[in-house]
């Protein structure tokens, strides 16, 4: 390489270019990658999130945890269990009986979607799935009421049992409505709050009616 002997880089020519090494390219993967963790950890994390939301519904305070990390597992479990428990009520002809599984499912999900659309159309700032999440989780008191009703009906179906069921369903209906209103009312414009709360009231009233009129075989 005789010709290259006199080639030299001048001292005053700046070396240009980017030789940056991305900082932290390894550590995010190590910290947040959930691919390598045991399956038990993954499941427990989701279960804990769902459980925490149930607790929030039990003691409704204005917390943003329910809204921020929405998920639809809880509503699905509640809806399926409520629809299953509403089975078994019957009449002699199918036309006169209680709601079928598909009807309960459709009422709950379609009702929640319509209420969410209603609140968004009225100018609410909550997102679609957050509202579905809240409405679904707040069905929990009514699912508890259904459980209690079925247990009471095991003991008998007289007037006393009806009064007990009426009180329990009424109290849970009030709890559901108040819980969901506590979460959802803040995201509405102030002069339209009643317009948003009324459909929620109607929704839980219909579910309560289905629970109260359940008559076992």
């Amino acid at each position, binding site marked *: 390489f005789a010709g290259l002997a006199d080639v030299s880089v001048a001292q005053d020519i700046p070396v240009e270019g980017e030789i940056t090494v991305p900082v932290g390219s390894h550590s995010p993967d190590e910290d947040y990658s959930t691919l390598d963790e045991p399956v038990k950890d993954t499941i427990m994390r989701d279960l804990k999130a769902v459980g925490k939301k149930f607790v929030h519904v039990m003691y409704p305070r204005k917390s943003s945890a329910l809204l921020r990390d929405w998920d639809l597992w809880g509503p699905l479990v509640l809806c399926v269990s409520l629809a299953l428990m509403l089975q078994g009520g019957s009449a002699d002809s199918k036309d006169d009986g209680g*709601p079928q599984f598909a009807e309960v499912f459709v009422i709950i999900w379609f009702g929640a979607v319509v209420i969410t659309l209603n609140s968004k*159309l*009225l100018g609410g700032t909550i997102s679609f799935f957050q509202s579905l999440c809240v409405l679904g989780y707040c069905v929990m008191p009514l699912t508890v009421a259904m459980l209690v009703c079925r247990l009471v009906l095991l003991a008998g179906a007289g007037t006393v049992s009806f009064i007990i069921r009426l009180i329990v369903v009424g109290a849970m209906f009030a709890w559901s409505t108040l819980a969901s209103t506590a979460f959802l009312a803040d995201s509405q414009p102030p002069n*339209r709050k009643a*317009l948003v709360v009324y459909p929620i009231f109607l929704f839980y009233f219909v579910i309560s*009616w289905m629970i109260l009129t359940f008559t076992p075989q």
Partner: protein
Amino acid sequence: TACLVMYLFAEFDDAANLLAANPDATTISIDEPAELPKNQHSRLQEPGREEDDELLGTDDSDKTELLAGQKKSAPFWTFEYYQTFFDVDTYQVLDRIKGSVFPVPGKNFVRLYIRSNPDLYGPFWICATLVFTIAVSGNLSNFFIHLGKPAYRYVPEFRKVSIAATTIYAYAWLIPLALWGFLMWRNSKVMNIVSYSFLEIVCVYGYSLFIYIPTAVLWIIPQQVVRWLLMVFSLCLSGSVLVMTFWPAVRDDNRRIAVATVATILLLHALLAVGCLAYFFDAPELDMPAPIIPAHNSTSKVLLEQH
């Protein structure tokens, strides 16, 4: 032409009155109607000028229909377009409901309350409430009527909810569609002053159904006379709202067609009420002596099997 001149003078006069009464009205030009605040009733006309008032109302609603067209400028596939149909506050919805329950004679519901801001909130949720009210009240009333009978077992009759929903939503949305089409067709033949947009007609029909909600609750009372009295009363109230809305729209047409249109509107309204009462509410039993206790076991088995 004399009528046309009278319109213009009347509008001019009315605008001057409005200006005197509301110095801070938003628009005071002759071309556009003065924009009154939505919850203010205009009580500036004397009784003798009621006809001008109606004609003015038609003029207003004609122009406000243009304004309505300007308001909804978002394309129909965006969410904002549909948000313009829900641009109502709580007090506005309550005012509209009040206007449908206490109709003021001579005042047009659309002109007085809707005023180029038709909303879909009222019609949709009033229909939903009515569906569930009728289903629940019907169920309760049947329960009380048949209570105490030996062979009666309570049934929730949940199928009736779907039937009620289909009926009421079809009535509240398809009849306005047909009526709107009919009015558009007549408008092309006869130069009508008044034309309502489809949403305004849906609004009137939706809000006029509100009176049936308390009526359905009161239909639990198991007396046939009471039920029919209630039905006639609520039919009068909501029918008058419809008549006062649509009479100015067909008045200028052929007399027979105008009367036939209004009569059809009222007939369909009555048909809905009577149909709901007949289907969802069992007839209360007349006061008959108690049925003879069957002597045979077979007879009682027959009774049980019938249910």
